[in-house]
Every structure is written in C-alpha cells, then in structure tokens.
C-alpha cells in the first residue's frame, strides 16, 4: 500500500450524497486510498465458492482488491486465503490458475510452503560445507505467506486483509442476510463456468449500475419488454443500516402497454423471440420476487435474475479500469431441464449478454463523459436526497446509501 495523505485530498460538493463529484472516478490518489480503506481494511471480501475447490489441496488463484491471492483447501478441509507472494523475493509462488497442490514451491529459490502458508523449507538454509546460509536467528515461522482472515457461509468464501471485528452475519446485517440465504440456502452448489471482462471505467460505476433500478426500465429493452425488471412492477430497494449493501427486488410483469410502459422507449410491444426457449423462466425461490440483485460492499454482486445465478466479482485495476469476473452456478440437485434453462438465460448476462452488454457499454460511455470534467458532479436525486428503503423503483436511494458509507470510510 502506498502512503496516504493525512488530509482529505478533495472537497465533496455541498449537496451531500445526492451529488457525486467526477473526481471519485478519475483521481489516482483517491484510488490509492480506496485500495487501502475499502479493499484493504477490515471488510469481508468475496473470494470464491467452496464448490470451486471441493477437495483438500484444491486451489484457485484470484484477485482481492487488486492483489493476487490463492484460495486453497487445506488438509484439515478449511479454506485458506494466501497472498500469492513469496516471503523471500516477492515472486508469485503459484502460476497455475487452478489445480491441486500438496504444497507451494516458489520457482525462484524453491522456498516451500504448506497449504496454510507456513514456510516449510529453505534450500541451503544451513549453507554448504559450513559456508553461507541463513543466519541462525532466521525464524521460518516469521516468513510464511501472508494469510488472510477467512469466513464462509453456505458455500460462499469471504476473506479480509485486516482483522474484522464483526462476523459475516453481523457485517451483512439481518435484512441482507435474509436475501443472501434466499439463494445460498445450504444446498450444494454446482459451478457452471466463468466469464470475465475488462471494463474501461471506475469500479464504482458497476455498483451504481446495480443499485440503480431507474435505468433498467429505460436502457434495457430485454428487461422491459419481457417484464423481467420494470418500474411498474411490485418492487423494493432495501439497504442495510450503513447503506453499504443493498438489494433491488422485483417480480415479473406482463408484456402489456400501460401508463408506465407508455413512457419507456425501450418497451416494444411487438418484439417477440422466434425461439422462446431463451426466456422460459420458472419460479424456484420462495416468495413473489423473481429477481433479486444484491450488492455487497466492497466487491460482490449476487445476481438472481429469473433462473440465472451468478457471482459478479469486482476487481479494481486503476481509477479508470476494473475487471468483472462472473461465476455462474446452479445447484447440484438441479434437474437437467433447470440446468439447461440456466445456460440459456446466461445469454442475457456477461460480456455478450443481451441485457448486461448495455451496462458494460454504458459504463464505457459514462467514464468517457466523466474524464477531464473533474469539476463537475453527477446528480443522484431521483426520489429525493434521503437514504431510505423504498417500495418502488423510481429512486436512486441505494446509490446515495453507497456514497454515504463511502464518504465515511474514505473521510471525504
């Protein structure tokens, strides 16, 4: 981590969370502070699904914040999250993206670590024929791989670079935990595959996108026309007590002209799929909601849109770029028909998604408009200036909630 300036480097505009200054999306100093305070502090960051590393020794490389980590299942069955950096000369000890290991051996000087990151061996530690070697005071136990605090719930692994002072359950809060457990209800998960894209925009625009139900009714023809997510449907925007986590909840509506759809240019009454198998959603979760999009501070979106389920992990790269890593999944007890349905509906999501393509392109165009306009601010005033839970979609309250929390963490 780079040294942080003590004083706030910038002044937030007067109108509180209803204005977001453009420099939060461009300033490298702000980005460095985010790596420290948002991604490198005591928060629980999403790492992976347990189903990705089911057996002892199974590992997967990934990024937390912008740092390389290895998630590995230890011989005791517990998941360890280790920074992928040899304690000797900082070389990456693990180069495979996934696999199974008994130990990690640095390719440079063969320093060897066990699956919990403990340093097991240093070649020529005692020198050769009485010459050289490490000094007597060298303590291997002080030179392990950096190991993160880890927790998990119902098959989902989280870790923290700091020392979290609250459990994951407290961190999420009762309301968010309820939505989390709706998808992660304890059933065994099945990984269906990955998608990954590099988006030339600030990482926060991704969160704002999924905290903004207003855009969905205007931008996404697919969602609007087929009633997958539209503001005339019974909906809710809810947050935890801090505003850092949120959900957008809605239920499917009909392809019909009404007072609301008449205002949506995106609504196409006559648009029909020639092969309707692409959109053949069935209800699979208790309750009325057919879509729950959950944004969990600071790096995860849990997507349940009809029958397509995915973890979308945010990997910030610099102020103007982030990677979005999608892990699609279902349940081990899915019928073949349900599995097929999930694969078909994945056509709506990801870098080529008939819905989410609009979003990655919108973020590209947003950043292009933000760049070199640092004195300007974005207006986030739909539904007023307050941060409150709402039973409708014509609001930007969850974006305000996000920035309310962001400002307190960042001291801006």
């Amino acid at each position, binding site marked *: 981590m780079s040294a942080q300036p003590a004083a706030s480097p910038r002044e937030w505009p007067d109108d509180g969370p209803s204005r977001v200054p453009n420099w939060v999306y461009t300033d490298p100093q702000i980005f460095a502070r985010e790596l420290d305070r948002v991604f490198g502090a005591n928060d629980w960051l999403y790492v992976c699904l347990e189903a990705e590393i089911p057996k002892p020794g199974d590992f997967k490389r990934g990024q937390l914040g912008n740092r390389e980590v290895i998630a590995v299942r230890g011989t005791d069955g517990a998941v360890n999250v280790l920074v992928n950096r040899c304690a000797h000369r900082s070389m990456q000890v693990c180069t495979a993206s996934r696999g199974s290991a008994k130990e990690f051996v640095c390719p440079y000087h063969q320093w060897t670590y066990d699956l919990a990151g403990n340093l097991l061996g240093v070649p020529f530690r005692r020198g050769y024929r009485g010459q050289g070697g490490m000094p007597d005071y060298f303590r291997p136990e002080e030179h392990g791989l950096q190991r993160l605090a880890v927790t998990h719930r119902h098959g989902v692994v989280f870790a923290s670079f700091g020392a979290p002072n609250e459990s994951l359950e407290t961190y999420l809060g009762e309301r968010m935990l309820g939505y989390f457990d709706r998808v992660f209800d304890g059933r065994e998960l099945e990984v269906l*595959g990955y998608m990954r894209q590099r988006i030339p925009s600030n990482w926060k625009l991704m969160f704002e996108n999924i905290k903004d139900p207003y855009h969905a009714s205007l931008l996404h023809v697919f969602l609007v026309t087929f009633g997958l997510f539209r503001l005339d449907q019974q909906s809710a925007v809810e947050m935890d007590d801090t505003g850092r986590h949120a959900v957008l909840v809605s239920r499917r509506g009909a392809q019909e002209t009404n007072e609301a759809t008449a205002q949506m240019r995106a609504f196409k009454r006559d648009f029909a799929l020639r*092969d309707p*198998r692409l959109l053949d959603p069935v209800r699979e979760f208790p309750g009325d909601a057919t879509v729950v999009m959950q944004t969990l501070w600071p790096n995860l979106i849990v997507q349940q849109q009809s029958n397509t389920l995915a973890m979308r992990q945010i990997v910030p790269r610099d102020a103007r770029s982030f990677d979005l890593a999608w892990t699609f999944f279902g349940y081990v007890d899915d019928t073949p028909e349900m599995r097929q349905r999930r694969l078909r509906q994945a056509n709506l999501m990801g870098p080529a998604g008939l819905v989410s*393509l609009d979003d990655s392109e919108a973020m590209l165009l947003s950043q292009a408009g933000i760049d070199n306009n640092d004195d300007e601010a974005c207006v986030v005033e739909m539904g007023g200036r307050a941060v409150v839970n709402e039973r409708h979609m014509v609001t930007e309250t969850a974006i305000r909630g996000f920035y309310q929390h962001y400002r307190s963490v960042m001291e801006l």
Partner: protein
Amino acid sequence: MIAAAPGVAVGPELRARLADLYCAYDDALNDGALERWPALFTEACVYKVIPRENFEQGYPVALIYCESRTMLMDRVVALRETALFAPRIARRISSGVCLRAIEPDGLRLTASFAVFQTMQDQPSELFLCGRCQDRVVEDGGTLRFAERLCIYDSTIVPTSLVYPI
C-alpha cells in the same frame, strides 16, 4: 485454402465448397451483414462462444449459447433493435482451416480465428483469438454449420462482445 489431416481423403470439389463456406462466414460478419449470418447454419444448429478455460474444464456456460437458427436470428434482431453499444468495427480472419475427419454426422473441421476491433477514433486492436471446432453437413444441397464452437484463448474480454465471432 482448406487443408486435410493425414488420412482424410477429400476431393477438390469438396475442398472448394468448404472454402466458400468459410469465406462466406467471415464475409457476412466483416461486411456487417449480420442478417446473412444465420443462413450459414442448419435449423437445429448449435453455436457457442466459450472461453478456453470453461471448455477445457468442462464447464458448460458460454457467452453466446444458441441452440437453433432462430436463436441466431433472435440475437441479430436484438443487436439491431435493442442493444446499446458504442460504435465499432469487427474484422474476423480465419486461418488454418483443416478437415479433421469425415463422420456419419458430418465433417469435422478446426480453424484458428482472430477478431480485430476498431472503436471510433481509436487504433485497431486484437480483440479475441482462438479456434473453432466445427461440424459441417450437407443441408438441402448446401454446406452449412451444424455446430460451431468458438473457443477464445484469453480469459478476459475487452469490455463487451457485441457482434458474434
């Protein structure tokens, strides 16, 4: 040019017809004539764009997953009428097309592809590269793709995959 793997007997006429099919495919995409693209597939075709890591590990999720010619048509209509995206030009180049086997359910071919992308006011860049695994069949006197898997090498897609590859 269509090559053939050792032991695969193929006459000049079939080679020429395959070359025409592969050329017509790249042409349809490079001309921006997406409407010509579904006609190069059979009615019950499978078309997928899948990252190499999913393919090699047996994960089924694909970025584009079409199970019929009409699904291809739906995607074309969706791109034309519903999607928002920044203007761009995509150029697809096939190379090393090779007939690997002649089987009862069709001809098995592989090919390398590279797709270059030119965003407005930006220099051209390599967008994706990889290989196709194809099954080509006789369909009413015309050669068509019954199956085309586009397996791209990188894990990362730059921003968005707008046009099929």
